C-alpha cells in the first residue's frame, strides 16, 4: 500500500477513533482483542474501524512521557491498590470521582502487566520483575512514607508504550488515516447546533430535546487538501491535551485541544477545564520537561540562596510532594525575591529556581535518567552532574476534558446540584487527556496519566466492541435499508460546509505569476504562487503565540478575578483575529497553515471555556490557586464544572463513596 491512508472512505464505519496516542491506540487494541470482536469474526463479520490521526504514526505526544506508569505491583515493597486509590483521591484534592479512581487503582496492575506482555521494555529488578520507582504523592499505608509505585523504562516510558501499542496495532491490522485532521464532530442535531452557534445562543433547544447521537466526523486529508465525510456509528475522541494554550509548556506543538474544542463546537460541554497542571520542573524558559524522576532519584530544589526550600512547604514529602504543591512553592520563592534568572537570559526575570542533581551518582544518572541528562546538556548547555539546573513550572496536563463515564461514554449535564441530569451522547466516546472521567480531580499524580489513557482507552474499546457486536455495519442479517428513516445527511452537509471554509481560507490569496521556468540552476527567491510578501497581516502562528502569552500571564500557577477578566477580553480580541485569518498560499495540499488556523480557533474556543470555568470557581483547589479565594470551599465547590460553548457553567456533584474530604498536606 502506497499510503496508510484509506484509498476510499467507507460508506459507514463501525467505529472511528480520533487520535493515535496511548488512549486511541489502547482503544483500537481493546476493540480488536475483545470477546465481542472475536465473536463477530467467528460469524464472518469484519468490523470497519478507522483510526484518524493528525500526525504520522509514532509522533504522538505520549512518546514524550518520561517518568513512569503507576500500579500497585509491589515489586519493590508490598503495595495495595487501596493505597494507590487513596493517594489518587487525595492528590486530586478530593475533586475525584471515587468509583473511577477505584477502577484506576484496581486495574492498574492488569494494565501494566498487559503492556509488558505486549512488549514494553520495562526496566527490571535484579530478579526480572518490572522495576518501580518513587513518584510524587504515591505513599504506603494511606498517606505514609513515599513508596515505589511507578513502573518505568529508564526515563522513556511514554516512548516505550507508544511504540509497543503501535506495534501491536500493526499486528492486529488496524487501519490508519494519517495526517488527516478532524475538523468537525457531527451529531444528529448538527443543523440546530450550528444555528445556535451562529446566534451565540445556547443549544438548549437541542439538549432539551433528549438524547443526541453521533453521525460521524469531517476529516481533512492534509496530503490532498480534500475534506471527507466520514460516517460512523461510534466515534472515540482521543486527541490528547491542550498545553499549547500556554507559551511555557512541556507539550508538543500539536497539543492544541482539538478534541475538547470539537466537543464544544458540537454543543457539548467540557468538565473541570480550570484545572491545568503546571509541572514544577520545566527546563527554564524552554518549558521542556525534566521528569519528576529527576527528583525521585535524588534531585533537590534550591532557591537563589541555595536553600533546599521544599522542607518549608511540605515537611514530610519535601521535593516529592504533589506537583501542584511543588509548583506553588517555586512560585512563592520567586515572588519572595529568591528566584534565579535563566542563565541563558541573565538580565531576564528571576523566575526560576535551581534543580540540584549533583548528589545523584553520575553513573546511576546515566543509567536511569538518560533522557533528562540529554535534555539538560542539549537544551540547557549544562552538566547536571556538576551544575545546578534552572527550572520553572511548565504547563503540562489538563485534568479536565470531555466528560465520560467509566465506560468511555460521553455525556452532558443540565441543571445544578440535586436537580442535575446527565444525558449520554449515543455513540460518542472519549479517552485519555482530552477526556475527564475524573480520576485526577484538581491535580493529577505523576504516573497516573499513562495509566488513565491505557486503562480507560481499553475500556472504551471494549464498550464500542459490544455496541458493534449488537449491530455491525457489515451485518448479513440486517434488513435492506434498515438505516434509513430520514434522508438528511448531516455529515455530508458538514463536510460540504468545511470544503467551503477551505476555499474561503484559500480564496483571499492573489496568485502570483506562476514561475514555471524555475529550473535546476535558478536560485529563485520569489514566492511564486503565494502571497507571503504581504506578510504584514496576521498568521495563525502569531495568534497562537499571543494566546500563549495571554494565558501564561493570566493562569500560570496562580490567578485572580482581575487576571481572568483581562484575559477574557484579550482572548476575545484574538478570536476576531483568528476569524480573519487566511492562508498565504493558494493550494490546499500540504498547506500547514490551514490546519494551523483551525488549531488556533480550537485553542481560542477552549481558552474561553477554561477562563469561564476558572472565573466561576470561587475557591483554590489542587492546581487552581486564586489569590482572591485562597481557601478550598467544599461547601460550594465540591463539584465538577461543566462548561459549554456559551460560557455557561453547570455543576455536577463529586461522587464520594469511600474517602471523606479532609485537609490536604504532604
Amino acid at each position, binding site marked *: *500500500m*502506497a*499510503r496508510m491512508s484509506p484509498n476510499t472512505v467507507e460508506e459507514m464505519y463501525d467505529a472511528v477513533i480520533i487520535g493515535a496516542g496511548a488512549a486511541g491506540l489502547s482503544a483500537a487494541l481493546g476493540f480488536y*482483542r475483545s470477546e465481542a470482536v472475536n465473536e463477530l469474526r467467528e460469524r464472518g463479520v469484519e468490523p470497519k474501524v478507522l483510526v484518524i490521526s493528525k*500526525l504520522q*504514526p*509514532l509522533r*504522538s*505526544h505520549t*512518546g*514524550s512521557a518520561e517518568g513512569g506508569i503507576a500500579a500497585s505491583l509491589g515489586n519493590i515493597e508490598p503495595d495495595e491498590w487501596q493505597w494507590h486509590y487513596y493517594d489518587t483521591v487525595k492528590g486530586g484534592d478530593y475533586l475525584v470521582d471515587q468509583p473511577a479512581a477505584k477502577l484506576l487503582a484496581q486495574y492498574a*496492575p*492488569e494494565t501494566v*502487566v*498487559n503492556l509488558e*506482555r*505486549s*512488549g514494553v*521494555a520495562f526496566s*527490571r*529488578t*535484579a*530478579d*526480572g*520483575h518490572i522495576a518501580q520507582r518513587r513518584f510524587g504523592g504515591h505513599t504506603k499505608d494511606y498517606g505514609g512514607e513515599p513508596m515505589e509505585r511507578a513502573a518505568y*523504562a*529508564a526515563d522513556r516510558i511514554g516512548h516505550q508504550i507508544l*511504540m509497543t501499542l503501535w*506495534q501491536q496495532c*500493526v*499486528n492486529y491490522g488496524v487501519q490508519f488515516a494519517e495526517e488527516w485532521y478532524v475538523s468537525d464532530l457531527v451529531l444528529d442535531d448538527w443543523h440546530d447546533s450550528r444555528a445556535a452557534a451562529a446566534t451565540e445562543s445556547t443549544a438548549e433547544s437541542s439538549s432539551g430535546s433528549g438524547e443526541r447521537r453521533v453521525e460521524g466526523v469531517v476529516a481533512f486529508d492534509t496530503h490532498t487538501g480534500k475534506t471527507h465525510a466520514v460516517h460512523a456509528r461510534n466515534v472515540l475522541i482521543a486527541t490528547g491535551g491542550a498545553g499549547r494554550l500556554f507559551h511555557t509548556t512541556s507539550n*508538543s*506543538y*500539536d497539543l492544541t485541544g482539538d478534541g475538547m474544542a470539537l466537543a464544544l463546537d458540537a454543543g457539548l460541554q467540557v468538565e473541570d477545564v480550570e484545572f491545568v497542571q503546571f509541572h514544577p520542573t520545566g527546563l527554564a*524558559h*524552554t518549558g521542556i520537561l525534566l521528569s519528576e524522576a529527576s527528583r525521585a532519584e535524588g534531585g533537590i530544589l534550591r532557591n537563589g540562596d541555595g536553600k533546599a526550600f521544599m522542607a518549608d512547604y511540605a515537611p514530610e514529602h519535601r521535593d516529592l510532594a504533589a506537583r501542584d504543591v511543588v509548583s506553588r512553592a517555586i512560585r512563592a520563592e520567586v515572588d519572595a525575591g529568591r528566584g534565579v534568572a535563566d542563565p*541563558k*537570559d541573565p538580565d531576564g526575570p528571576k523566575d526560576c529556581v535551581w534543580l540540584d542533581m549533583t548528589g545523584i551518582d553520575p553513573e546511576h544518572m546515566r543509567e536511569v535518567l538518560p*533522557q533528562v541528562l540529554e535534555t539538560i546538556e*542539549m537544551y540547557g548547555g549544562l552538566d547536571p552532574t556538576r551544575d545546578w539546573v534552572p527550572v520553572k513550572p511548565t504547563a503540562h496536563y489538563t485534568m479536565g476534558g470531555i466528560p465520560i463515564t467509566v465506560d468511555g461514554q460521553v455525556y452532558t449535564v443540565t441543571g445544578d446540584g440535586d436537580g442535575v441530569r446527565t444525558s449520554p451522547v449515543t455513540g460518542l466516546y472519549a479517552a485519555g487527556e482530552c477526556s475527564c472521567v475524573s480520576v485526577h480531580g484538581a491535580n493529577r499524580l505523576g504516573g497516573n496519566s499513562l495509566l488513565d489513557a491505557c486503562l480507560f482507552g481499553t475500556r472504551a474499546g471494549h464498550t464500542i466492541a459490544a455496541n458493534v457486536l449488537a449491530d455491525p455495519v457489515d451485518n448479513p442479517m440486517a434488513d435492506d435499508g434498515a438505516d434509513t428513516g430520514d434522508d438528511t445527511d448531516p455529515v455530508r452537509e458538514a463536510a460540504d460546509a468545511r470544503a467551503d471554509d477551505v476555499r474561503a481560507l484559500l480564496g483571499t490569496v492573489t496568485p502570483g505569476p506562476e*514561475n*514555471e521556468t524555475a529550473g*535546476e540552476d*535558478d536560485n*529563485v*527567491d520569489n*514566492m*511564486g*504562487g503565494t502571497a*507571503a510578501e504581504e*506578510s504584514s497581516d496576521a*498568521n*495563525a*502562528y502569531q495568534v497562537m503565540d499571543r494566546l500563549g502569552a495571554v494565558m501564561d500571564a493570566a493562569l500560570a500557577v496562580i490567578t485572580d478575578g482581575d487576571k481572568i477578566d483581562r484575559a477574557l477580553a484579550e482572548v476575545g480580541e484574538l478570536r476576531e483575529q483568528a476569524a480573519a485569518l487566511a*492562508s*498565504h498560499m493558494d*493550494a490546499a*495540499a*500540504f498547506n500547514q*497553515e490551514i490546519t494551523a488556523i483551525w488549531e488556533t480557533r480550537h485553542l481560542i474556543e477552549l481558552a474561553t471555556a477554561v477562563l469561564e470555568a476558572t472565573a466561576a470557581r470561587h475557591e483554590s483547589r489542587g492546581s487552581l490557586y486564586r489569590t482572591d479565594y485562597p481557601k478550598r470551599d467544599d461547601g460550594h465547590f465540591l463539584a465538577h464544572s461543566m462548561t459549554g460553548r456559551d460560557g455557561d457553567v453547570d455543576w455536577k456533584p463529586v461522587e464520594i463513596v469511600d474517602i471523606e474530604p479532609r485537609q490536604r498536606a504532604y
Partner: protein
Amino acid sequence: MSDERSDKATVTLRVARFQPKAERERPARAGRRERGGSPFGGRRGSSSPFGGAKRVRGRQWTQDYRLELSPETTLLDALLTVKRTVDPSLAFRYSCGHGMCGSDAVAVNGTPTLLCTAKIRDVAKLPSSFPGADDEGFRKTGVPAVVETDADSVTGNPAGDADGPLDLGVVEIAPLPGFAVLRDLVVDIDKMLDQLRKLKPYLIADGVLATTVDGKVDVFEYLQRPEQLKKYEQLTNCILCGVCEGACPVYSGGEAFVGPAALINESRFVNDSRDYEHDGRLDMIDTADGIQACQSVRACSRPCPKGIDVGEEIWQLIAQVRER
C-alpha cells in the same frame, strides 16, 4: 524556546523548497535536490520499484531567509520564527521540539539530522571559508563554489549592515535524502514504515493477557533480567526518524534494501529474550534486499539522534544470521 536573548547573530537559512503540481503532469527535470542531497547520488530517471524516492512533479526553488537570533537557537526554532514572522507557507514537520518524536529529520548541509537537535552555532558556515566543499571535504560538481546571497532574499528583519551583529553565514536545509519530497521539507516516509511493517515488528510470545480477579492479576509479567534487557534496550529507543536511512548510501541511493531502520527494529526483537520468533526473524531478514544488501559502510551510525550505533548493531545481526 525562542526566549534566548544572548548575543544575537545573523544567519541565512537556505531552504530547498518544492511545491507539487496539483493537476498538470509535466516532464520532470533534474533539480537541485537530487544533486544536493546524498553525495552518493539519487537515481535520476530510475524507475526501479525500490528506486530511491519516487518522483513527485512540481516546482522547486531555493529560498534564503535571513534572521537575527542567538547562535544557540535550534534550527527548528529558527524555522518556526520564519513561519511566524516571514513566511507562513514554508512547510516542515515538527512536533515535540526536543528530539523525542522523530518528525523533523532533514538534511542540513547535506547531512541527515533532526531540526530540533541542530544548533545554528554548529551548522552555520561562512561560504567563503569552505569554497564549494561540504562537511566531509567533498566538492560538489556543477555548482558555483559560492552561492550568491540574493539581494532580494526574504528577510526576517533588515539585513545587518557591516557594523551589525556577527554574521554566522549560511545553513543549507534540504529534505531528507532517499525519500520522495511531498512539499518543501516534508517527505514521504511510508516506504520506510511499510518495510518495517513487513518484518512483524511486534513481540511474539504466548499472547496471554492478564485479567483482574478479586483485585489481583491472574498472570504476571514475563520475567527478564537486567542483563537480558541490556541486550536490546538501546534499540528500543529508535524513534523512526529516518536519519540513518537518509545517511545510508545503499538506501538513499535507491538500491533494493529494507533499510537500517527496519533492521534495527528487527534486531530489537531478535535480541529480546521474551520473543519466540528469534530464528524466524533471522530468516526473514536473510534476503537479497534484507541484510545481504547492507554494505557495512556504517554511514548510518554517526547521525543517530538516539545514539544507537546502527552500523555496529547491523554488523552483529549479520553475524547472527551467518552463525545460524
